[in-house]
């Protein structure tokens, strides 16, 4: 599974692997596809784009003034998983999510995993994502990370790996829902022929899940709101979409204020108390009295309300310590420490550049590796060695050598491919998968998720900010 030093990796195709021929989950779809007129499919592709643009399903790209609202390209060929494959994945995900929450509870309380020496103390203590303000705070219902997006890659028929845990404020779930909606509009007959497990109840599940973790003191049905940084945020569409689908208020920091020990929103009839806040604002901006004093996106004093147990913040402040890329490399130990079992879903082997031996190896093999910033996200600030020029590798090596602890490195994996529809017909492209997990008094995983696809031939970068697209993800009801 290690890189061959080229971007043209011999990848496992999920529809039509070279070795074994058409895979079973794709059989019914393939039969249907062969009956279709290519011109009609091209037309459908354009229809899809029109639907997305009309409904305003756009995202903003930072640093691109002109195209400030762009579409994430959508491909009409679904990515299909058999029920059996999905069941295996969910077992691994559940175990991992349990471990993540246990880890968070532990490091903000007794820190047993640090005492046991399984995770180096300085990695937590010196980490910006670790919030000392959370020490000793136990969130309502004991849940820290309520909504998690686990990025999973596939290498072969039976090998799945977790690429990244998104335990802060994972985005993209609106695309999962809109992709399905679009597919059902474009190809209603497909869904009659093939039994696909539904994803559209996600907003209801999210609402129930948030209601279940309300503060103990809440009387009656809790008031839930989604906190957005505002309409200029890149994910604003999703914030509005989720609030709308859940039937709750979409609020901004300027709407909120702490009154009598509770967080309240300013309405046309005066202030109304909020019990559960699904926040899509980063920790740093949440409370100018506790964190960044210049933040206008948060609520002054909300952390005091939180510590007093009068509001649920989802996800809890400080969950970033669990999805930090430096912590990631310890996830197998973390899972084993808290669940007592080996991790069902493995990690990708990771070199921590902070360790001298690893740094030496990484610098020597820079052209073969993917190197990421420990705190980076969204595909910014990473190097894909095999795809980079010699000069790019040299420049990156300098940055790396200057601050090794800022980086981790992973082998360039031959991510599985799934075909997309191009002008010349089907053509394989690398994909990953982000299923969405809800944690309350139980763990729920919606069957499906967001499949991101690198649209450029041979490219391994699936991030939408870097030219990636999405696909509808089907879990078969078989």
């Amino acid at each position, binding site marked *: 599974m290690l890189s061959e030093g080229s971007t043209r990796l011999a990848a496992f195709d999920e529809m039509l692997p070279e070795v074994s021929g058409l895979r079973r989950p794709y059989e019914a779809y393939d039969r249907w596809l062969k009956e279709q007129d290519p011109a009609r499919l091209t037309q459908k592709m354009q229809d899809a784009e029109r639907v997305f*643009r*009309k*409904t*305003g399903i756009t995202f903003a790209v930072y640093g691109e003034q002109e195209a400030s609202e762009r579409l994430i390209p959508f491909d009409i060929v679904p990515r299909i998983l058999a029920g059996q494959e999905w069941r295996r994945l969910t077992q691994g995900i559940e175990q991992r999510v349990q471990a993540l929450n246990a880890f968070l509870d532990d490091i903000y309380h007794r820190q047993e995993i640090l005492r046991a020496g399984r995770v180096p103390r300085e990695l937590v203590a010196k980490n910006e994502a670790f919030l000392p303000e959370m020490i000793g705070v136990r969130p309502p219902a004991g849940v820290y990370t309520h909504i998690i997006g686990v990025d999973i890659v596939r290498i072969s028929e039976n090998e799945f790996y977790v690429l990244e845990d998104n335990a802060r404020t994972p985005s993209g779930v609106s695309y999962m829902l809109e992709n399905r909606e679009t597919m059902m509009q474009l190809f209603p007959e497909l869904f009659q022929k093939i039994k696909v497990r539904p994803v559209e109840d996600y907003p209801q599940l999210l609402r129930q899940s948030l209601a279940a973790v309300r503060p103990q003191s809440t009387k009656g049905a809790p008031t839930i709101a989604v906190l957005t940084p*505002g*309409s200029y945020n890149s994910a*604003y569409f999703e914030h*509005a979409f989720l*609030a*709308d689908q859940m039937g709750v*208020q*979409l*609020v*901004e920091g*300027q*709407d909120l204020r702490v009154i009598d020990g509770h967080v309240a*929103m*300013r*309405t*046309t*009839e*005066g202030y*109304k108390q909020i019990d559960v806040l699904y926040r899509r604002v980063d920790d740093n901006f949440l409370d100018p009295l506790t964190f960044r004093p210049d933040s206008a996106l948060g609520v002054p004093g909300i952390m005091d309300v939180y510590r007093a147990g009068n509001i649920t913040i989802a996800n809890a402040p400080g969950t970033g310590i669990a999805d930090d890329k430096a912590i990631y490399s310890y996830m197998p130990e973390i899972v084993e420490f808290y669940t007592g079992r080996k991790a069902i879903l493995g990690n990708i082997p990771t070199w921590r550049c902070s360790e001298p031996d690893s740094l030496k190896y990484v610098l020597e093999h820079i052209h073969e590796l993917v190197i990421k910033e420990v705190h980076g996200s969204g595909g910014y600030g990473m190097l894909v060695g095999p795809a980079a020029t010699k000069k790019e590798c040299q420049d990156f090596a300098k940055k790396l050598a200057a601050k090794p602890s800022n980086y981790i490195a992973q082998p360039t994996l031959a991510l599985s491919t799934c075909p997309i529809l191009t002008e010349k017909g089907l053509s394989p492209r690398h994909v990953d998968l982000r299923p969405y997990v809800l944690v309350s008094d139980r763990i729920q995983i919606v069957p499906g998720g967001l499949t991101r696809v690198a649209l450029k031939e041979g490219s391994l970068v699936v991030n939408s900010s870097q030219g990636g697209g999405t696909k509808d993800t089907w879990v078969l009801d078989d």
Partner: protein
Amino acid sequence: MLLGRTANGLYWMNRYIERAENMARLVDAGLRMALTRTQSASEEWNSVLLSAGSDVTFSQKYQDYTAANVSDFLLRDISNPSSTMSSIETARNNARMVRTALTRETWESINEAWMSLKRMLARPIDERDLPTVLDAIKRETALIRGSFYGTMLRNEIFDFSQLGTYVERADNTARILDVKYYVLLPSLSWVGSTLDNYQWESILRSVSAHRSYRWVYEADYKPTNIADYLILNVRMPRSLTFCYRFLGEHLKFLADDYGERHACHGTADKIQTLLKKGSIKDIFDHGLHEFLAEFIRDNTRLGDEIAQDYRFN
């Protein structure tokens, strides 16, 4: 329950939709005048700018009052915050902000209007295309209104939207009348003059009422009838009385829903009473200009009070 910020967004979204259309209507009337009377076209364009409340900003940028300059400034100039393009942009930004309060149809119609006008107004308008562009603007705003009326629940969201629409509309109509008040004064209106006929028609045209006027009154243009139509007629959808009938109604719905009356209710009642019991003769006796100036002030105050009473800002 509605966030104050959402009420604010709905209110301004609708004010700007109304304004976007109003600019197109004003340019339309100006164009008509310029086509029929070539001599004092620049004077006519100046009064269009006055009605639009954009005369000062225009003169900072241009010297010549030509069709090309004025229509560019009022329709597509984004440095003019009241131009059709700026208004649609602001309306859409507000709509984006309050998206969860709108039906999908309403949001899509605003988004599509924005997309199509952005495309259409991307480059300077060729004078030959001006009528097509004006039609397109009116059509897009009509589509927004259509999906709004056709799909929105009649609740507080609807009420705050309508308050925005009618405060803006009343302001527009009053300004159009005030800019031309002198051509309506009996002392100056020698009956039968072609000049005044054009002037009067222009007033009616700028509120899209040049045809409906004839259904209600005689075929002749009479200044008192025109003033009566735009100020006191209960059925004319852009008259001051019509606007206040609906402002009164939506404010009453809100008072009933929330079980509370505010300062804005008193102000609206006061203006409504004034319009209800006044006759056009009283208004002319009092002074048309004085009446309109007072109305514009009161109407602005009503807007401010609504914002304050319902915690917009």
